[in-house]
């Protein structure tokens, strides 16, 4: 890029140079202009060469001051700025990384806390379910036992009731026969007849 710019400038300059050169010549040729020529070419004047010597000294001093003092000063400012900006960027990058990792940790902690809480909830529900189940089973078992015992009691009472009923029937039948006929009937006959009748009626 610099090269093409330079070549452009060279082209422009090479176009301008003859023009610029021609002008003072035209001025010198113009009527009324002093015919002494250009003061720049008056080398008989010691000041013309004198300015070259002075120029060399001044240029050298300027070069030394610039290269030893002024330009390094600018350079140091530019370098320190680059360093400052670089350091600040580093610090910012580090802070960002720390913040990112903190956010990650937070998310991680939140996720694990959620998982833990969920597990606790699940466990409590499961425990409650198991406890309820066990309680139901115990209750069922106790109820079954109680029902069984009650049935046995009912059955015993029924048996006892039925046994005393036969005896009462026997005695009643014997007493009835004696009252009606006045004759005493043997106990075995009464018992057999009552038994027969009870069986026929479904007792």
């Amino acid at each position, binding site marked *: *890029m*610099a*090269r093409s*710019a*330079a070549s452009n*400038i*060279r082209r422009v*300059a*090479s176009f*301008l*140079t003859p*023009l*610029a*050169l021609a*002008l*003072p010549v035209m*001025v*010198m040729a*113009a009527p*009324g*202009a*002093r015919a002494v*020529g*250009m*003061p*720049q*070419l008056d*080398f008989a*004047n*010691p*000041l*013309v*060469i*004198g*300015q*070259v*010597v*002075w*120029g*060399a000294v*001044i*240029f050298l*001093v*300027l*070069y030394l*001051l*610039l*290269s030893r003092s*002024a*330009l390094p*000063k*600018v*350079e140091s*400012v*530019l370098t*320190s*700025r680059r360093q*400052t*900006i670089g350091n600040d960027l580093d610090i910012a990058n580090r802070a960002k990384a720390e913040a990112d990792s903190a956010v990650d940790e937070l998310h991680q902690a939140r996720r694990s806390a959620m998982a833990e809480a969920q597990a606790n909830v699940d466990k409590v529900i499961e425990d409650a379910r198991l406890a309820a189940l066990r309680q139901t089973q115990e209750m069922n078992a106790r109820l079954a036992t109680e029902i069984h015992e009650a049935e046995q009691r009912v059955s015993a009472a029924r048996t006892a009731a039925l046994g005393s009923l036969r005896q009462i029937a026997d005695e009643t039948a014997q007493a009835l026969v004696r009252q009606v006929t006045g004759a005493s009937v043997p106990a075995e006959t009464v018992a057999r007849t009552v038994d027969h009748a009870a069986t026929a009626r479904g007792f």
Partner: protein
Amino acid sequence: MAAGSTIDALGQFELHPVLGGLGEALRFSQSPLMMIVASVAVLAFLYVGMRPRAVVPGRLQAAAEICYDFIHDMAVDTIGPEGRAFFPFVFTLFFFILAGNYLGLLPFSFAFTSHVAVTVALALMVFVLSVIVSLKVQGAKFFAHFMPAGAPAALAPLLVPIEILSFLSRPVSLSIRLFANMVAGHVMLEMFAAFTIMLAGLGLIGDVLAVGPVVINVALMALELLVGALQAYVFAILTCIYLREAVAH
């Protein structure tokens, strides 16, 4: 300057001793004086500009840093990594010429770049430096440049003198370009200023017409500001190009 009907366009380039007899004895004219003023201006610009050493620069510091970066990039981009070593030289050259050109535009001032002796000295300095660097970096291979690579050997008697001539014409074109541009600009400013004075001598109609050359001079001043910067840039970039050829292996 302009007296009566004659235009003395070249009188402005005459050198006069300053500081009386001391200046005469030391051959110290207004030209070296302006060189010192230019150098002090460049140094003051950098020292005062960079004094705050601020991370966020103010205007003057930003200007000084832009100037530094501009020449630094030009030197490094054009010459290559070796350009770092030549950067202070290119910087000095560019701002010495630029300050000289611009200071010469001030009234009652003097443009030392309008003296061919000065520009030839500057161009020869660049030329000698590039030759020394070439010989140091490339040794005897430096002379191989005068025979373009790939050209038939039969053409050597023709090509070599042409190449040598074109090489030797570098300092001539470098110095004449700057000198001629500055002289032309100052001559034109002087001529149009003289037109104004001459027209003003013609009475009322002249007073009106005299506005024309003043307007032209305002435009010329803008042009001279462009030319002053452009010529300093051309001088510096050509120096960089010559130095690049010198450091190329």
